[in-house]
C-alpha cells in the first residue's frame, strides 16, 4: 500500500516537473532533461514484470498527452521498464532482500550510477531516434541523446543524494 502511494506521488511530481519545467529546457539547443525515466529505474527488485510494464506504459502515455507526442514516451518507457527488470539482477549484491529497493543507498553509488546511466542512455537514444524519424541526421541525434542523457543522469543522482540521507 505504502509502495502504491509512493508510486502515485512519484507520478504526479515527475509529471509536473517534466511538463511544466523540463520540457521547456533546451540547453545549448541540444539537451532536454527527461527526468521521468527515474520512475522506471527505481522499481524495486522482483516487482511483477507485468506490473512494471503497465505502470511504465500508462505513465509514458500521460507524459505524451501533455507533450503532444502520442506513443513516443509510452513506447520508450515500456522498453526501459522491460530492460530494468532484467538489468537490475546483474547489479544487486549477493544475499540481498528479495524486494530490495533500487536506490543509491541500497546498491551503492557506483552500481546505481552505472545502472541508471545505461538505462538513461538507452532511453535517450531510442526516444530521439523515434522523435527524429523523418529527418535523420545521425550526428545531431547522437549529440542530443548523449547530452540529454548526461543532464538527466546528473539530475537523478542529485535527487538520489537527497533521498539517501
Amino acid at each position, binding site marked *: 500500500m505504502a509502495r502504491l502511494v509512493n508510486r502515485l506521488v512519484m507520478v504526479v511530481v515527475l509529471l509536473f516537473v517534466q511538463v511544466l519545467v523540463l520540457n*521547456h529546457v533546451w540547453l545549448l539547443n541540444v539537451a532536454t532533461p527527461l527526468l521521468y525515466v527515474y520512475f522506471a529505474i527505481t522499481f524495486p527488485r522482483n516487482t511483477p514484470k507485468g506490473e512494471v510494464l503497465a505502470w511504465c506504459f500508462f505513465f*509514458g502515455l500521460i507524459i*505524451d*498527452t501533455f*507533450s503532444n507526442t502520442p*506513443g513516443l514516451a*509510452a*513506447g520508450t518507457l515500456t522498453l526501459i521498464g522491460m530492460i530494468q527488470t532484467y538489468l537490475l539482477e546483474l547489479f544487486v549484491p549477493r544475499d540481498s532482500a528479495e524486494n530490495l529497493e533500487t536506490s543509491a543507498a541500497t546498491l551503492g553509488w557506483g552500481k546505481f550510477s552505472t545502472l541508471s546511466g545505461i538505462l538513461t542512455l538507452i532511453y535517450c537514444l531510442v526516444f530521439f531516434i523515434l522523435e527524429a524519424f523523418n*529527418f535523420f541526421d545521425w550526428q545531431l541525434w547522437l549529440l542530443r541523446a548523449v547530452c540529454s542523457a548526461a543532464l538527466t543522469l546528473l539530475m537523478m543522482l542529485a535527487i538520489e543524494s537527497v533521498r539517501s540521507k
Partner: protein
Amino acid sequence: MRNLLDFLKEYYHWLLFVFLEVVSGFLLFQFNNYQGSVWFSSANSAMGKIYEWSSGVTKFLTLSEVNEQLTRRNLMLEQQVEMLGRRYTQLTHDSTTMERNEMKFLSQYELIPAKVIDNPLNSKENLMTIDKGSADGVAVDMGVACGNGVVGVVYLVSRHYSVVIPVLNATSSRISCAIRNRGSFGYLHWYGGDPSVAYVEDVPRHAKFKLGEWVVTSGFSSIFPSGVSVGKIEQAYNSRDGLSYKLMIRLSTDFTNLRDVVVISDKSIAERAALLQAARDSISKK
C-alpha cells in the same frame, strides 16, 4: 494444454510487452499527424486548463519585458503612421481619404486577441496552443500574428483552445511571402535548429532584392492579408537545382518569448471559397 498455461504464466510479460509496444507504435504513427487527435493533445481542455495556469505564472514574470517591447513597437508604428500620413497628404492634398481607407482595411479583418499557453520549441515539428477556440470565433486555417510579425496558422480547434502550426514547424508550415515593395514571392520554410532563422524558397532568379530588405506575407492566400512582417533578408543562396534563390531570413517574431497574439478572422474567406466552388462547379458541368 497444461503446458501451454504454464508457458503463458511464465512468459506472459513478454506478450504484454509486445502488445504495449504495438499500441505505442500505433499511437506514434497514427496520431502524430495530429488529425483527429484532439483527445491526446493539448487541445483537450483539461490539459489546456493546466497549461493556462502555468502560463499565467510565467506571463506575470515576463510582463515587464513584454511591456517594454510593446512600447517600443508602439513608438515605431506611431512614427511610421505619422510619416506615411504626411507623405500621403503631400501627394494627394487630401487628409480625409487616408482615414477612410484605413477603416475599410481594418473592417475587413476581424482580430481575435489570444494568449499563447503552450509553446515548445525543442523539436522540428513544434505545435503551439492558444486559449481561444470555436466559442470565440476561431476556425481552422485562420492566420495568427503578433505585434512583431507572423506566427502561424490555426490547425485544430476545440471549444476553448486551438492548436496552431507555427512558422517553426519544419514539415507542415508553408506560408507564402513576398519581398516588400518588390513583389517577387516565395515560400517560408524552417529547417529546425535556431528558432530565429528561416528560409524563403522558390524565389525566382529574376527577382531583385538587397540584403537587409524586409520579407512580408504576400496575401495570395486568404489566410494572411498582404504586408504582415515576416523577417529581414540576411543571406541569399542558390537553390539546389539552381533554378531559384533561397533566402536566409531573420524572423521578426521572437518565438522564444511569445505571449500575446491575434487570430486574423477574415470575413471574406467564406465568400471567396463559395465563389471558387461555384466556378469549379460550372466548369465541371460543361
